[in-house]
C-alpha cells in the first residue's frame, strides 16, 4: 500500500500541531517518523488513524483520496496501529485478544476458536511472530504482548502498520527481535510507519526517515545518508551533544548503604527482593532495568514513600528505613520522582508555589505560620533564571508549562536545599533534547559537588551516559553492578535476568530471527 499525506494541517486553537505535513510511505517500506515530544508525531498519527480530523490537506491511499471518520474506517482501509500502551484484555488468551471485535463465528454465533487459532498460527509463521495462541495475555512478557498487538493488526489485514514508540517498554534484545519482525513485514510487502524519538533505532531499522519539528516536516532522508548527529540536529534545530560531558568520578565515602532491602507493592507482592546497594559521595550509580522490575518501589523506599518490609537503608549511617518522606527530606534526600505530574508537582498551582512545595513553611518563606509571598516570588524569579525555566511568569500554573520546563521546576526545587543524596527516577522521560542535556548537566554538577546520585532509568542510553557504575535490576533483585563500559549487550542481557558474570551470550528465547546486534555506544 502506498500512503500519501499531502499538506495535512491540524490546529488546536491558535496552536498548529501539524503544519502542511507531507509524507509518503511506499509499499514494503519501513518509514521512520522521528521527532521530539511535541513535534506533532502523535497528532499526525491521530489524523491518519481517524482519531482526529485534519483541518486541511488530504490522505491518499494508492492514489485515491480517503477520509476516516473513526479508527474503524482506517482499519477497513488496511491501516493498523500498535499503540504505545497496549489495548489488550489481560485475562483473555492471545487468540481471544486477536479476534476481539472481528470474531470468526460458527452457527448460532459461537466463537470459532479453532479458526482463530489457525489464523494466528498462519500469521505467526508467515512473519516470524512466535506466540502461543492459548497463552493468557497477562502472563506474557511485554515484548510478546506487543507481538499480540501486531498480530491483531495483521489479522485485520493491515497493509500499513503504525508503531507508536514501540521500543519504550522493551529490553534491547526485545527491540532487536521487534526490528526483525518489522523487516520481515516489509519483505512481505507491508509498509511500516515507525514512530520514535530514539536515533539509534531509526538508523537500525529505517529505509527512509522523515524528521518533524514543531509541527513541520524538516526533511526526509535515509539511514545511509545521515548519522546520529545529523538526525539530532534536524530534530532539535541546532547542534546537540549526544554524550554527557563528564569527567571521571572521584568517589568518596559511602553515603547510601542499602542492605537486604525488601519492599512490597500495592498488591502485597514482593517488588524489591533483598537488595544490597551502595552509593558513594561524588558518584552516580545508575539503576538499569525494564520498567516494572522493582525500581519504582526501590526509589520510593529510599525517599520514605513506601515502607521497607525488611532490611536497612542508611544515609551517612542514619537509618532511613521506615522514615517518613519529611524525615528523608530532612536527612538530605532529594527526590525527582518518576512521574512528575503525579508525584512531583501540583499542576494547577503556580510555578512559584511549586518551587517551595517542600520548604513553604520555613524561613524565609514563612514566619509565624504566615507565608511570605514576596520571598516566594523572589525565590521563583531567581530559580527561573538559574534553572532556565521558560515560563511566562512565576504565577503561571505549572501544568501549562512544557514537560521539560515542568521537570526543571522539580529539579530546581529538589536541588534548592542541602542535599546528600539525589534520587532521580526517569529524570528525562518525555523531555526534549535541550532539556535532557540540561538535566543531565545538572545531575553531573551535583555529583561533582560531592552528592551521591542514584539514577533510575529504563532508557539504557541514559544509564550508560550518566552512570559511573550501573546496577541492573530484574524481578526485584540486583543482577549485578557493572562498569558502563561493559556495553549495551551485556547490560541488556542482565536486564533480561542473566547474571553479571560473563556467560555464553545466548539469545533470549523470544528473540526470534537474530539480527546483528547494534554496536555499543
Amino acid at each position, binding site marked *: 500500500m502506498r500512503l500519501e499525506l499531502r499538506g495535512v494541517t491540524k490546529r488546536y486553537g491558535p496552536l498548529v500541531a501539524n503544519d502542511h505535513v507531507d509524507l509518503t510511505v511506499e509499499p514494503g517500506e519501513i518509514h521512520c517518523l522521528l521527532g521530539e515530544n511535541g513535534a506533532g508525531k502523535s497528532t499526525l498519527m491521530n489524523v491518519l488513524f481517524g482519531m482526529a480530523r485534519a483541518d486541511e490537506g488530504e490522505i491518499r491511499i494508492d492514489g485515491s483520496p480517503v477520509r476516516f471518520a473513526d479508527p474503524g474506517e482506517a482499519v477497513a482501509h488496511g491501516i493498523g496501529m500498535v499503540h504505545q500502551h497496549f489495548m489488550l484484555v489481560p485475562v483473555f488468551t492471545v487468540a481471544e485478544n486477536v479476534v476481539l471485535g472481528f470474531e470468526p463465528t460458527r452457527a448460532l454465533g459461537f466463537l470459532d476458536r479453532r479458526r482463530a487459532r489457525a489464523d494466528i498460527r498462519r500469521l505467526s509463521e508467515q512473519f516470524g511472530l512466535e506466540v502461543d495462541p492459548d497463552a493468557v495475555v497477562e502472563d506474557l512478557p511485554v515484548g510478546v504482548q506487543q507481538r499480540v498487538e501486531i498480530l491483531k493488526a495483521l489479522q485485520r489485514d493491515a497493509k500499513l502498520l503504525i508503531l507508536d514508540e514501540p521500543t519504550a517498554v522493551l529490553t534491547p534484545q526485545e527491540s532487536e527481535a521487534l526490528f526483525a519482525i518489522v523487516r520481515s513485514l516489509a519483505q512481505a510487502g507491508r509498509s511500516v510507519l515507525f514512530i520514535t524519538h530514539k536515533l539509534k533505532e531509526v538508523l537500525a531499522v529505517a529505509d527512509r526517515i522523515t524528521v518533524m519539528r514543531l509541527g513541520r516536516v524538516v526533511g526526509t532522508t535515509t539511514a545511509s545518508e545521515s548519522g546520529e548527529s545529523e538526525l539530532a540536529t534536524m530534530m532539535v534545530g541546532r547542534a546537540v551533544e549526544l554524550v554527557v560531558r563528564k569527567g571521571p568520578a572521584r568517589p568518596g565515602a559511602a553515603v547510601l548503604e542499602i542492605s537486604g532491602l525488601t519492599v512490597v507493592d500495592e498488591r502485597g507482592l514482593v517488588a524489591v527482593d533483598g537488595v544490597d546497594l551502595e552509593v558513594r559521595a561524588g558518584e552516580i550509580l545508575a539503576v538499569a532495568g525494564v520498567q516494572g522490575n522493582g525500581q519504582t518501589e526501590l526509589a520510593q523506599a529510599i525517599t520514605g514513600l513506601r515502607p521497607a518490609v525488611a532490611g536497612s537503608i542508611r544515609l551517612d549511617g542514619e537509618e532511613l528505613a521506615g522514615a517518613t518522606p519529611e524525615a528523608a527530606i530532612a536527612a538530605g534526600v532529594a527526590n525527582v520522582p518518576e512521574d512528575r505530574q503525579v508525584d512531583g508537582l*501540583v499542576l494547577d498551582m503556580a510555578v512559584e508555589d511549586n518551587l517551595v512545595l517542600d520548604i513553604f513553611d520555613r524561613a524565609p518563606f514563612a514566619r509565624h505560620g504566615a507565608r511570605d509571598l514576596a520571598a516566594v516570588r523572589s525565590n521563583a524569579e531567581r530559580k527561573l533564571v538559574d534553572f532556565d525555566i521558560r515560563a511566562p511568569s512565576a504565577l503561571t500554573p505549572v501544568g501549562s508549562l512544557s514537560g521539560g520546563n515542568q521537570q526543571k521546576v522539580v529539579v530546581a526545587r529538589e536541588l534548592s536545599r542541602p542535599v546528600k543524596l539525589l534520587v532521580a527516577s526517569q529524570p528525562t522521560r*518525555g523531555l526534549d533534547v535541550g532539556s535532557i542535556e540540561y538535566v543531565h548537566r545538572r545531575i553531573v554538577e551535583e555529583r561533582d559537588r560531592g552528592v551521591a546520585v542514584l539514577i533510575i532509568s529504563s532508557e539504557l542510553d541514559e544509564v550508560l551516559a550518566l552512570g559511573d557504575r550501573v546496577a541492573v535490576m530484574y524481578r526485584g533483585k540486583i543482577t549485578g553492578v557493572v562498569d558502563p563500559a561493559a556495553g549495551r549487550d551485556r547490560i541488556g542481557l542482565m536486564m533480561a535476568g542473566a547474571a553479571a558474570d560473563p556467560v555464553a551470550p545466548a539469545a533470549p528465547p523470544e528473540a526470534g530471527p537474530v539480527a546483528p546486534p547494534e554496536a555499543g555506544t
Partner: protein
Amino acid sequence: MTPDVTPGAAAGAAGATAEGGPEPAVPARRNPLRGLVEANVVVVTALAIVSSLLIGGVLIIATSPSVLHALGHIGSSPGRALGVAGSTVGDAYAAMFTGAIVSPSGLGHAITTGHGWTAVLTPISETLVSATPLILAGLGVALGFSTGVFNIGAQGQLIAGALASLYVGFEVHLPIGIHLPLVVLAGAVGGAVAGFVPGYLKARTGAHEVITTIMMNYVFLDLLNELLATQPFQQPGQSNAISRSMPATARLPHLFGAGLRANLGFVIALALVVAAAWFMRRSTSGFAFRVIGSNPKAGRTAGIDVRKVTTAVLVMSGALAGLAGMATLSGTDFFLSSGYGGNIGFDAITVALLGRNRPVGVLLGALLFAALDVGGRNMQAATGIPLDLAFVIQAIIVFFVATPALVREVYRLRETGASLGQVLSKGWGG
C-alpha cells in the same frame, strides 16, 4: 500514546491570556488565566439564578389555580390570561423580595416619618439571622472540600457544638464578658471534637470520611434526643424533650436593638469569612491544605504529612460547624429541642457548592439561601404560594451551578480553558 500536544491546555492558556476577566469575589487575584475562569464562574452563577427564577415563574403559573383558570380562556381573552399570569408571578417574587430584603413602601414611609424602622429592617435582619449558621457551617464544609476531604457531618458537628455551648451556658455562672466567649469557644470545641473522630479514623485506619461523618450525624442526633430527656440538660419540670435555656450572660447581644433578632453571631461569621480567606491564601497550613486538596501525592512526596492535614481539616471544619450550632442557640433560640439545627448541616454542603468553596462565595451563597428561605415564607403568607416553591428554586439554582456545562450550552457561552467543574472539589482562594 504520547500526546505530542495538549491542545486544551495550550489553547486555553493562549485564549485566556488574550483577555483578563474582571476580578470577582476573592481579591488579589493576579493571574489572567484564573481571572477568566473566575469571571465565568460569576457569569454562570448569575445565569443559574436567573434561570431558576424563570423556571420558578413557570412553576408558579402551572400550579396557581387562578392563572390556570385564566389560561383556560386564553383563546377568548389572551391579554387577560397573560396579565393574570404575569401579575401572579410578579406578586410572588415581590413578596419574596419584601420578605427577605426590604419593603420599598415601608422604607419610604420610615424615611418620611422617621418611624417604623424596626418593621422595615425586620426582613433583612431575619435574612442575616438565617444566613449566620449557613455561613459558618458552609465555611467548614468548603474548607474540607478544598482540601479534598468530604465532610458530610456538619449536621452532627453542629449539634455537638450546640450541646457544648448549652452546657457551658447553663452550668457556668460568670459575667457576660467572660461567659459569652466561653460559650462561643465551647461551641467550636464541641464541633472540633466531633470532627476529630472521623479525622483520626481516616488518618489511622483509612476509614473514609464520607461514611464516618454521615454515621456521626446519627450519633449526635440520637445523643441530642437522649440528653434532652435526661438531667442535667432537660428543662426541670418539663416532660417534653426541651433543654434548659441559656442565661442572659450566654446570649449573643443584638446588633440593632431588642426588636431585631440580628445578633453578634453574624459578625462572628463575617469575621470568620475574612479569617478563612486569609488562612487559605496566606497561612502555611492553608497552603498545605490546598496542596493536599489539589494533589495529595505530590504533597506527600514533598514532605507534607497528609494524615496530619486530614485530621486538622476535619477538626477545623467541625469547629466551624460547631459555631453554627452555637450561633443559633445563643443568638435566637436559647434552648435546644428535638430536631435542632433542622437541615442546616446539609444546606451547608449546598452553600459550599454554590460558593465554589471560596469563603466569600460561601458568604454570598448563604445570604442567597437565607433570603430565599425567609422571603419564601413571606411569599407563602402573602400570596398562598407554598414555601416549597422557594426550596424548588434553591434546588434549581444548585442544579445549574453544579452543571456549568449545561448553563454554557443553554446560553451558548464560550468554553474556557480550565474546566469549571473541577473547581468544585478544589482550590479555595486558588
